[in-house]
């Protein structure tokens, strides 16, 4: 007897009957009833009404029954949160069952019950299970932490589960390690700044060791986690690569792709002249080729990734053209991807083979595939100059087949070939013109019209041809209309005598009878050009065209780099960054390849100042980051008096440039007023008087609040210190850098100009203290793009000292949290123009480097 019998009871009063059976004393009957309930649930019937009765069956010694009840709980607990509490006791009990299968089952199911009320009861059992003696229970508990975190992140942090999870990375059992890594990666993904996966050479070493021992899936978790690490130098990078390459021989395609991801990323750091670099390149090709014999869906993922890899490192697969030849029984999605890669790999060396293949494809039956094949022939012509002639003749052969869509596609690509190689293949125009009537697609019609217009002087009946298009002008698509207008104007400029009437006609059609603004505007422009200055018109309309590029559809380099970091994932399949299709990926950092070993040597360049410009997307953050870096820098030195940070004076205007007037100065915030502190020195031979100062418009509207107070004339070699109060109500204009200030100083001799940069910190106002709640809400509201992260290095302060120090500069600590030796400070800053900047500061005891995450809610800040 099979289980299908359970699906057949569909009479009325069923629920009632089931209820009775569930409460039956006979174990067998109970079990049958639960099976029926699950069967009903499976076919989508609502059996939630039986909740209490099913839960009553939970305490059983029958494992199968228990599993079914748990399954039921997972499905309905959310709709019956109050009753779900009934189950808690059994869970707690089961977590202490002598049988590890049951302990694991309980802890696994527990995490799947997404009811907030329950979660806190589960902390104790989970804590025990995380330390269970049986690895099967531990590995299940590790995943449960991720589940719980998804429901209540705060709870997990408060309970210290994250630390336990981190400890599990050093577990003796490889499966436990793998699941702990997976769980931590999952949690870290939603908390990008939490630095959970504190990857350092020691932990990396542990992971690499576990890599050899865990299951294929565990290997994938570990490899994906490794891919997030940035090695310190090329030697570390090489040694990781060496330990990852054996994975390329794994039978599971997903393991191979994840290994390829790590290698592609870390390879970036290896110097290209290193022998190992060449070895690695050679090692990558065979596994990539073998991926093409996997299941079609995996092939598809592989091909989309290979497409990225050949763009990033064409040398890897340049000799492997043949493996991308299309097979008859490939699914269409595989065929189209292979075609794409064939074009990318096409070169002078293999073009003959490629063309022969493409020609075959162009006679297949699948319309989309054929079209793409024809287009590919055109792209080959443009890419490999030596092959252009052969491509053109192949295209002409294809036009002879008269298969409508083949002809149209061929004409579109021939237009591009004409543009790339002008005055070379015009002899084929006659053949093209024969097919004028069969063109019904706008793109092909437009291409044909372009050809006629461009070569009007060589086509005797060009005017007739274009006139024939003109008849149905208003029924054409905009693309064709625009092209027709331009083509006729070209014709007129080339053969003015016979075509005056035609050009009049098209101009009036375009300007008077059309609703399309683009068409009208272009019509008017041509009209005016032609009527005012025919010579100029000729220069404009018949101007030399820019060359078309050889490679089309190339992915923009920064995106390509990001996608390489996501090999194997959906992003790499879509060729889009994750932020483009994952909702709520707040704060997910755009992944980047590490800096090349041959450029920087060490990737950690931004020492001292935390703000390495490369990682600062939002313009405001750069100076703020720099400012914060400054604040800490000083803080790290000898104990400074409390108070706002004041940068040392610098020379803004050297005497050489200002006829003897030297100006140095700084900015400060004193008692809520921004001060510009200037030191004027007269290094000239004559006395200076009549000082005045003015600011150019700037980002934060800084302006002098009063006149420059230099009352006494400044004699030779005399120095005067003045303090100029500033207001922030002046005119605003975005500067670059943001904190740039252009100043003009006038005296009796001349006007001098200089620019200086003020610390953003002086704009932080005193009432920048935010309510915790408000802070939390605002922090959540911050869009990704407005967030950035950087490190401040070498700062030896504890969190309290830092907090005090920062408060002196009007950076207010709103909340503080300690997670396993790592202090997190949440801070708010209010700028004089009312913009809030929120920051999260992470510091670890004994580690002089702080991680700062900055975010601001207002999109507007981008404009300042």
């Amino acid at each position, binding site marked *: 007897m099979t*289980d299908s019998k359970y699906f057949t009871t569909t009479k009325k009063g069923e629920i009632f009957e089931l209820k009775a059976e569930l409460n039956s004393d006979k174990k067998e009957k109970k079990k049958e009833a639960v099976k029926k309930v699950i069967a009903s649930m499976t076919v989508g019937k609502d059996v939630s009404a039986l909740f209490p009765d099913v839960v009553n069956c939970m305490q059983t010694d029958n494992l199968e029954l228990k599993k079914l009840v748990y399954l039921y709980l*997972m499905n309905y607990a959310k709709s019956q949160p109050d009753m779900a509490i009934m189950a808690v006791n059994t869970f707690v009990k089961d977590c202490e069952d002598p049988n590890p299968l049951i302990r694991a089952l309980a802890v696994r199911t527990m995490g799947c019950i997404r009811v907030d009320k329950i979660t806190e009861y589960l902390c104790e059992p989970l804590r025990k299970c995380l330390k269970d003696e049986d690895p099967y229970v531990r590995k299940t508990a590790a995943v449960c932490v*991720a589940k719980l975190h*998804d429901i209540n992140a705060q709870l997990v942090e408060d309970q210290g589960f994250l630390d336990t999870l981190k400890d599990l990375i050093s577990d003796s059992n490889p499966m436990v390690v793998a*699941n702990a890594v997976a769980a931590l990666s999952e949690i870290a993904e939603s908390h990008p700044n939490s630095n959970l996966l504190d990857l350092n050479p020691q932990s990396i070493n542990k992971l690499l060791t576990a890599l050899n021992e865990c299951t294929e899936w565990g290997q994938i978790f570990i490899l994906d986690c490794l891919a997030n690490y940035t090695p310190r130098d090329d030697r570390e990078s090489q040694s990781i690569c060496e330990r990852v390459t054996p994975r390329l*021989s794994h*039978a599971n395609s997903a393991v191979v792709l994840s290994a390829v991801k790590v290698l592609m990323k870390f390879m970036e750091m290896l110097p290209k002249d290193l022998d190992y670099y060449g070895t690695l390149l050679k090692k990558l090709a065979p596994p990539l080729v073998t991926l093409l014999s996997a299941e079609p869906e995996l092939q598809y993922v592989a091909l989309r990734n290979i497409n990225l890899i050949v763009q990033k490192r064409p040398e890897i697969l340049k000799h492997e053209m043949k493996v991308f030849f299309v097979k008859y029984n490939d699914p269409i999605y595989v065929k189209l991807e292979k075609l794409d890669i064939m074009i990318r790999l096409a070169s002078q060396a293999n073009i003959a083979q490629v063309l022969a293949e493409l020609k075959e494809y162009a006679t297949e039956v699948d319309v989309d595939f054929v079209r793409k094949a024809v287009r590919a022939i055109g792209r080959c012509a443009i890419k490999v100059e030596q092959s252009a002639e052969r491509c053109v003749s192949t295209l002409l052969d294809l036009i002879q087949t008269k298969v409508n869509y083949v002809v149209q596609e061929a004409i579109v690509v021939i237009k591009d070939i004409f543009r790339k190689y002008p005055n070379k293949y015009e002899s084929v125009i006659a053949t093209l013109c024969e097919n004028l009537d069969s063109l019904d697609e706008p793109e092909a019609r437009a291409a044909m019209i372009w050809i006629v217009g461009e070569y009007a002087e060589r086509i005797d009946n060009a005017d007739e041809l274009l006139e024939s298009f003109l008849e149905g002008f208003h029924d054409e698509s905009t693309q064709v209309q625009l092209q027709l207008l331009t083509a006729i104007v070209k014709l007129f400029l080339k053969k003015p005598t016979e075509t005056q009437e035609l050009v009049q006609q098209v101009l009036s059609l375009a300007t008077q009878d059309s609703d399309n603004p683009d068409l009208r505007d272009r019509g008017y422009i041509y009209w005016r050009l032609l009527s005012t200055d025919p010579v100029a018109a000729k220069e404009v309309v018949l101007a030399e065209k820019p060359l078309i590029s050889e490679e089309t559809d190339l992915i923009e380099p920064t995106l390509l780099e990001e996608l390489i970091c996501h090999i194997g*994932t959906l992003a790499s399949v879509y060729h889009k960054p994750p932020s483009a299709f994952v909702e709520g990926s707040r704060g997910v950092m755009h992944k980047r390849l590490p800096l090349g070993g041959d450029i920087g040597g060490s990737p950690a360049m931004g020492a001292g100042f935390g703000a390495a410009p490369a990682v600062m997307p939002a313009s405001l953050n750069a100076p703020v980051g720099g400012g914060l870096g400054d604040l800490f820098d000083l803080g790290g030195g000898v104990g400074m008096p409390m108070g706002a940070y004041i940068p040392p004076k610098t020379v803004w205007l050297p005497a050489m440039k200002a006829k003897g007037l030297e100006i140095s100065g700084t900015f400060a915030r004193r008692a809520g007023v921004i001060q510009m502190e200037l030191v004027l020195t007269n290094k000239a031979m004559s006395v200076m008087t009549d000082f005045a100062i003015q600011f150019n418009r700037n980002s934060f509207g800084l302006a002098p609040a009063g006149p420059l107070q230099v009352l006494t004339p400044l004699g030779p070699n005399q120095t005067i210190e003045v303090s100029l109060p500033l207001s922030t109500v002046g005119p605003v204009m975005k500067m670059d850098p943001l904190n740039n200030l252009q100043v003009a100083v006038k005296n009796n001799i001349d006007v001098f100009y200089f620019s200086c940069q003020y610390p953003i910190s002086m704009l932080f106002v005193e009432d920048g203290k935010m309510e915790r709640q408000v802070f939390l809400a605002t922090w959540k509201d911050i869009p990704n793009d407005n967030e950035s992260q950087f490190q401040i290095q070498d700062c030896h302060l504890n969190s309290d000292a830092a907090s005090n120090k920062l408060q002196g500069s009007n950076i207010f600590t709103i909340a503080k949290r300690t997670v396993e030796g790592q202090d997190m400070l949440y801070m708010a800053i209010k700028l004089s123009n009312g913009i809030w900047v929120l920051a999260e500061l992470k510091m670890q005891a004994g580690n002089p480097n702080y991680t700062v995450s900055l975010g601001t809610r207002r999109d507007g800040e981008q404009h300042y």
Partner: protein
Amino acid sequence: MSASAVFVLDLKGKVLICRNYKGDVDMAEIDHFLPLLMTQEEEGLTCPIMSHGNVHFLWIKHTNLYLVATTNKNSNASLVYAFLYKVVEVFTEYFTELEEESIQDNFVVVYELLDELMDFGFPQTTDSKILQEYITQEGTKLEVSKTKVPTTVTNAVSWRSEGIKYKKNEVFIDVIESINLLVNANGNVMSSDIVGTVKLKTMLSGMPELRLGLNDRALFALTGRDKGKTVTMEDVKFHQCVRLSRFESDRTISFIPPDGESELMSYRINTHVKPLIWIESVIEKFSHSRVEILVKAKGQFKKQSVANNVEVRVPVPSDADSPKFKTSTGHAKYVPEKNLAVWTIKSFPGGKEFLMRASFGLPSVEKDEMEGKPPITVNFEIPYFTVSGIQVRYMKIIEKSGYQALPWVRYITQSGGRTAMLFRYSLLMYRERDPSFSHREKLFKIRTSIYPIVFLFCFLSFRLPTTE
């Protein structure tokens, strides 16, 4: 990281069974799956990844089922597909056939398996042999002693249980090779490579350590040995059990084998191979009246060898009727449901050449749509014939109890024949020779040369040495 939920649907898009792993995607989203797929199929552009809003569907099809994973994150797509195929594999091991009925008949076990295979989107234990130790098809009575977690589940050796016992300790090694050939219209071999697999049938007690020695050129180069013919393997893929880092460092294939049958490794060799059976064909199509097919098959292998069960499958138009055949040897038949003419030759000696003529009637009213050009397929087996030259040189078996084990190398066909070394041909492409053919011409003439992709099977029953 990977799947949020996994669904098994029938062909109408009805959910047969599903499991919600993460709860971050609404389970009702699956209702969009089939409409999306239908739209794509209408456009003729299906894709294994589809999205609706921010939900992504990753799917595969198996018999009359769709297996679909949903996610709203940037999941590891290759992991998801590998997992879905693994699910198919496990279910097939459990239910022999995986189809609509087997899911319904076994829904309790399916739920249990889904629970064990994946947790919160992370694939867990997917080895069906190990799973069968604690998820049995009969309801398990809970006796503490009985249902324990097999330690294997979490062991570093997650594919083999402890305490296996055999009276006679033996291991059988099967080497199966297939040769892929692609030849263009001019008769040039465009590409050829050999894909081979080494399969094991292990009947060994305890936890044996095995070492397999092949005549691998890279290994011989490393050890500086030069013993006869070697083979250069382009790429090698190993079962989870093989120590990959060991292979990487000194090309040693060392492992603790899974019990019973398993695929130990597969390899690819880039060697130029000539087609063993050369086929030329002339297909003349007289529109509205008939199509005439002439196929010539030539054995290009040694005269002493014989190809068995040669099957030449020639595609014919779907609207053909009234078949007539004439063959110089063997017999031919029409298989209308596959649009094929199949010519079978029981025994095909090397160096010989045979002919088949076929003619079909065509209706006077022709179908408008163009038909694809499926390949002509040839299947055959040649006993006592080797292609790649790969050899299993030895198999070392060490178990702590110190028993004597017998390793055998066998070369078998998939159909289970055990008598000879076999070759098999399969699939090939055919291509037009004349590029100017037109779909509209009255006389439709295709000349084709047919080049096969070859499967090679070897069979032997050699006792292997157990040392180098």
